[in-house]
């Protein structure tokens, strides 16, 4: 009986596709978000149609960095205290494999083709390189103390790693796996994000309280985004996650214990608005249509949903304990 229904459903779906009807797009924002809960050792799966948690997946210890494989089939999550990256099958929503990430993985980045994965090993001052198809370790790169933030240039040629105690953004040539430049930024750099047009790299400094903007050609800091919130002491402003719209016009910066997301005009590098979200906001992810931005709020154990166009928080979803990372199916 059930099978019958499903067959019928899929037929309708196919018919819809073939005839070019907008049937498939009925709920415009039906995406699946995966949130890593650092303390619960779980992943909360959120349906962006109903804005509810549809499943909680048990994973290894201290899950943080999380990302979909490029083909959308798997979710990779760094479980630092188990010294591995676990692989979740997006279809069955269960852990099916693990990657040789090296010790204490936190954040990682993959190339555009989804073939190579670069992992920051916080305990070892190294970046581990993994062949994703073979799920084998290819080598490692020595970087500064406590490597964390990871991003790859849109052309795939440059990997940026930030090291938290060395206070640098290391520019690594992905072909030779050699560091080509080290750029000093403010204290405790945690996250790096390229502009989609490759013209700038943005690096957040949690303790420094700024975002440094680096010219990736000259390897120089060419500007800084600073934050000021009336009534809030400066120490509470601790920038972490960064999200940039595809047109490179607007950036969103998570400000940690300031409990706010700063909306930044990329051209002028000025904050235009602060959006109040949950407590200790860490990271964020856009829905693929860029209508919504979801942020993980560590201390209040929830996820805030921001309407990107309206620049408004429209929803809060309770997840597990200390939500940290987030990724949304492509």
């Amino acid at each position, binding site marked *: 009986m059930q099978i019958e229904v499903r067959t019928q459903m899929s037929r309708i779906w196919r018919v819809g596709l073939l005839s070019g009807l907008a049937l498939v797009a009925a709920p415009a924002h039906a995406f699946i978000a995966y949130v890593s809960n650092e303390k619960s050792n779980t992943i909360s799966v959120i349906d962006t149609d109903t804005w509810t948690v549809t499943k909680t997946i048990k994973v290894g210890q201290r899950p943080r960095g999380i990302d979909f494989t490029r083909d959308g089939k798997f979710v990779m999550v760094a479980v630092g205290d188990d010294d591995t990256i676990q692989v979740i099958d997006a279809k069955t929503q269960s852990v099916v494999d693990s990657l040789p990430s090296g010790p204490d993985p936190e954040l990682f980045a993959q190339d555009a083709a989804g073939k190579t994965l670069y992992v920051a090993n916080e305990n070892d*001052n190294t970046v581990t390189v993994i062949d994703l198809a073979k799920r084998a370790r290819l080598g490692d790169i020595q970087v*500064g103390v406590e490597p964390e933030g990871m991003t790859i240039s849109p052309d795939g040629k440059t990997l940026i790693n930030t090291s938290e*105690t*060395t206070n640098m953004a290391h520019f690594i040539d992905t072909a030779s796996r050699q560091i080509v430049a*080290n750029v000093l930024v403010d*204290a*405790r750099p945690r996250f790096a994000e390229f502009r989609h047009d490759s013209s700038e790299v943005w690096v957040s400094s949690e303790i420094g*309280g700024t975002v440094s903007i680096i010219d990736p050609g000259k390897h120089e800091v060419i500007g800084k985004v600073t934050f000021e919130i009336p009534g809030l*002491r400066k120490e509470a402003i601790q920038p972490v996650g960064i999200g940039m719209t595809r047109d490179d016009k607007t950036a969103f910066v998570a400000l940690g214990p300031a409990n706010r997301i700063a909306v930044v005009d990329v051209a002028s590098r000025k904050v235009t608005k602060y959006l109040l979200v949950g407590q200790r906001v860490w990271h964020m992810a856009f829905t693929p249509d860029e209508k919504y931005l979801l942020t993980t709020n560590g201390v209040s154990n929830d996820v805030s949903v921001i309407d990107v166009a309206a620049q408004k928080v429209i929803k809060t979803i309770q997840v597990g304990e200390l939500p940290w990372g987030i990724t949304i199916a492509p």
Partner: protein
Amino acid sequence: MIRWLVGLIGWSLAATSALAADPVTIGVGYLGVAGTRATLSLVEQPAENDGVAGARLAIEDNNTTGKFLNQRFTLEERRVKEGEDVVQAATDLAARNGFIVTDLPADALLKVSDVLRERGTLLFNAGAIDERLREADCRANVIHTAPTRAMLADALGQYLVWKKWSRWLLVVGSHDEDKLFADALRRTATRFGAKIVQERTFEDKGGARRTDSGVTLIQRQMPVFTQQAPAYDVLVAADESEVFGAYLPYRTWDPRPVAGSAGLVPRSWDAAQDQWGAIQMQNRFFKLNSRRMTALDMQAWTAVRMIGEATSRTNSGDVKKVTDFIKGPDFSVAAFKGTRLTLRDWNLQLRQPILLVDGRMVVSVSPQEGFLHQVSELDTLGYDRPESKCKLK
């Protein structure tokens, strides 16, 4: 032809050496006193390398960063034995090191700082918590990474008041440093509205800290010592000398928590601290030293990291340049305490959150919510600028 060849080789050699220039070497000295003090708890007995182990880790951290900037850090340790001249040892260290981290008693530190002033050596006091080193006896060439007694007392007091445990039974040891800590606790009580309902003195009559049948005796003594007290919420002990504090928890006449020198203790750092990325540092420390990290280790680590931070920001190993930067308005250092640490420019004391620990866990971190300040909430801990008697010379 040969001359041409020789010339070419010479030129290429010069070019190579220009590319791989010798790294700038930054020498850091560590000056402490030989031997360790006895504690009541065997678990808390400090290791021989307490303090310097933290400095050593920071040297490693600085060198990892330094390899990208062509800077190299070295550490030279010196421990003075009883009867040895500390000034002589300091002068000797200063001949090779522009920076010296010290774990010295207040008087010895003052002697050293006065002798080294002309030379321009920058000292980091990692060990002494005495108020007077930041007040009447402050020095322009001494930076303090150790917190003060008043900072520690205020950190504890804020929490006790927040908990609404505002009636304190204060028990003070008979040694000078116990009395100084008691002074700080009294000041805290006045500042934050706690009431010391009674004070008692625990006389040190000598005796060994290690015995075979100690527990039986202590179990009889402590209830008797604490009986007939007026109504109180928490017993606050001032026992820096390690004579009785650790005997109090679970043995008071009335069932009351203990804080201060035992029970809930204020410290700059603890082996249990794992928030704000501290776990990585705790792991690095354990790997290097095969033991857990103490508050003194952290105070020394922070001192050496401050040097590293300033040398990388100024891209220089010049002591004067580095010193000016550390004392300047743009300096801050990250030390796994959830906020940037800066210097109080009026007395060169490092502002820092203080942990409240019970020997197994971090119970809380002060300043507590609601203790406000117009400049930095960290300045709700200890003597603030308007109260300071320090004139930096």
